[in-house]
């Protein structure tokens, strides 16, 4: 059975006719059949669509036509991203039978580039969570750390790539949901700037924060997938016209002399000692590679979690108003319209989603709007301003991705606040709209993966990828 580690390998093998796209897809489905019952990374497979696409790629190879940058590459897609004709559940009971009538723009662009979409991956319900334990369809095992959570919310996508059940995967990041599972599963993972990738067809959690981004086996693959998806989409008014750089072409440029900020607020108490040891080694590696390291201040960091959980839940409570049992999903029986809404939502949403709807509705409600929601928006401005000031002095910022290594399944489910607090290093970049990557930075005790985060200024994706690539090439994963 063929295992391809990178997009480059797939492209080469397919172009050289060493393997057909159909054979490669079949090999991945065999491996999924062998391992998915244990990992639970995929919720739905779409063989018919995958083979149809693979055949198109093979026909292009046979006809000697030019191949797209993702020709024949098996890719997994998080189940919050719409796929026409393929069940899309958001890992929620309330969408258990939902079949979208259209594709997300990201999916359309991947397929136009030749990607073969294998199926839809498990995640926290409506992308709300940091451990994938909020899925209505069961937990996901971390292939890199057995018995541990894969991180969340894009846990299934991270696990699928880490276990070689896909060459790359799409996740979504609202407060860390791509970067943290990437870190926990020991693979690179990236979110571009807010507005870089169209959100059309991404089922909304928090619209001012949500972003689609890639997981892969190396940084170069993230560059390829991000480039395919990036750019203006008339169907998303927040997708920007800012030019898309040729990320792959920038990867090998020297990083000597690049100014890196080390925010002291990210290295305080609260970080596990084992994580600190690896991150310190990672920072030293960047210094050895010739980067100019400087201590910086991001003084409002300590207020980021509070701000994030106001903004994100407020937006969620509004976005999730659409699940009413009228147009899609199961409907609970009731004798009046209002009871039908109430019963459908009460039965369809899981505990974390209900908790966030309660919190989000509360912070938006009359009498509390100014004290919470408006206050949150103001502090969000202060957090974004911290970054703007920092980027006047440095080219990128280096931090840990998560203060803790992958934790045991079930260890934190009963304490939502503790779970939220562990998002501290990722929510800041989310609130400020900045691009961020998590790249493997050794393993704690030789076992638990640690991720190093690199944050860039808005639309500084090329620089972030270039640094991560250099870090990876210099052996960052084996520190």
């Amino acid at each position, binding site marked *: 059975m063929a295992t391809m580690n990178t997009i480059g390998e797939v492209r080469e093998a397919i172009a050289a006719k060493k393997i057909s796209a159909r054979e490669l897809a079949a090999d991945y489905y065999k491996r999924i059949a062998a391992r998915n019952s244990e990992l639970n990374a995929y919720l739905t497979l779409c063989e018919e669509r995958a083979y149809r696409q693979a055949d198109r790629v093979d026909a292009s190879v046979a006809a000697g036509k030019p191949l797209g940058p993702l020709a024949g590459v098996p890719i997994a897609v998080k189940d919050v991203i719409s796929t026409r004709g393929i069940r899309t559940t958001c890992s929620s009971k309330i969408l258990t039978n939902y079949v979208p009538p*259209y594709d997300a723009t990201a999916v359309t662009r991947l397929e136009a580039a030749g990607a073969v979409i294998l199926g839809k991956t498990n995640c926290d319900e409506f992308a709300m969570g940091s451990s994938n334990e909020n899925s209505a369809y069961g937990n996901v095992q971390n292939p890199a750390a057995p018995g541990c959570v894969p991180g969340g919310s894009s846990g299934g996508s991270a696990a699928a790539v880490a276990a070689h059940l896909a060459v790359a995967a799409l996740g979504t990041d609202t407060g860390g949901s791509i970067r943290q599972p990437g870190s926990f599963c020991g693979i690179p993972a990236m979110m571009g700037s807010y507005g870089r990738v169209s959100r059309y067809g991404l089922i909304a959690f928090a619209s*001012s924060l949500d972003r689609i981004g890639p997981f892969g086996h190396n940084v170069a693959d993230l560059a390829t997938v991000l480039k395919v998806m990036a750019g203006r989409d008339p169907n998303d008014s927040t997708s920007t016209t800012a030019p898309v750089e040729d990320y792959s072409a920038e990867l090998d440029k020297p990083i000597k002399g690049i100014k890196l900020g080390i925010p002291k607020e990210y290295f305080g108490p609260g970080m596990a000692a084992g994580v600190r040891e690896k991150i310190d080694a990672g920072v030293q590696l960047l210094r050895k590679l010739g980067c100019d390291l400087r201590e910086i201040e991001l003084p409002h960091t300590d207020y980021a979690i509070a701000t994030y959980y106001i903004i994100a839940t407020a937006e969620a409570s509004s976005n999730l108003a659409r699940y009413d049992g009228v147009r899609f999903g199961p409907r609970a029986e009731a004798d*009046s319209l209002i009871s039908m809404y109430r019963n459908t939502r009460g039965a369809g949403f899981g505990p974390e989603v209900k908790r966030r709807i309660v919190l989000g509705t*509360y912070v938006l409600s009359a009498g509390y709007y100014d004290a919470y929601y408006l206050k949150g928006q103001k*502090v969000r401005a202060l957090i974004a301003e911290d970054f703007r000031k920092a980027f006047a002095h440095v080219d990128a910022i280096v931090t840990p991705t998560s203060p803790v290594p992958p934790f045991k399944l079930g260890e934190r489910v009963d304490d939502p606040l503790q779970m939220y607090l562990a998002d501290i290093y990722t929510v800041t970049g989310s609130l400020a709209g900045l691009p961020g990557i998590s790249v493997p930075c050794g393993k704690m005790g030789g076992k638990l993966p640690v991720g190093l985060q690199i944050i860039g200024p808005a639309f500084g994706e090329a620089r972030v990828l270039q640094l991560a690539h250099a870090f990876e090439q210099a052996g960052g994963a084996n520190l």
Partner: protein
Amino acid sequence: MKISRDDVLRVAELAYLDLTEEELDKYRAQVDEILEYIGKLNELDTTNVEPMAQVLTSDQAADATLREDLVVPCAVAEEVLAHAPDPEPPYFRVPKVIEKQ
């Protein structure tokens, strides 16, 4: 205590969310703890801070505001209704809203 049981009931009413007695108590306690934590934002004087209501600055959003208002084909009604819980094409049927006097 930041949030009372009555507050949670009121909020659940606003959100059309049916909660069991057990859920009401559990979420009240958990949301209370979260709101207590969120209270730390009051340490900051934000009197003269403009709220951040948009992520993209106006130059980044240059043309990203309104597209041209063109009619494009969107023949998905049949497909949409096929997956609805109680379709009556071309409508969605819902429980009775208006009672006869």
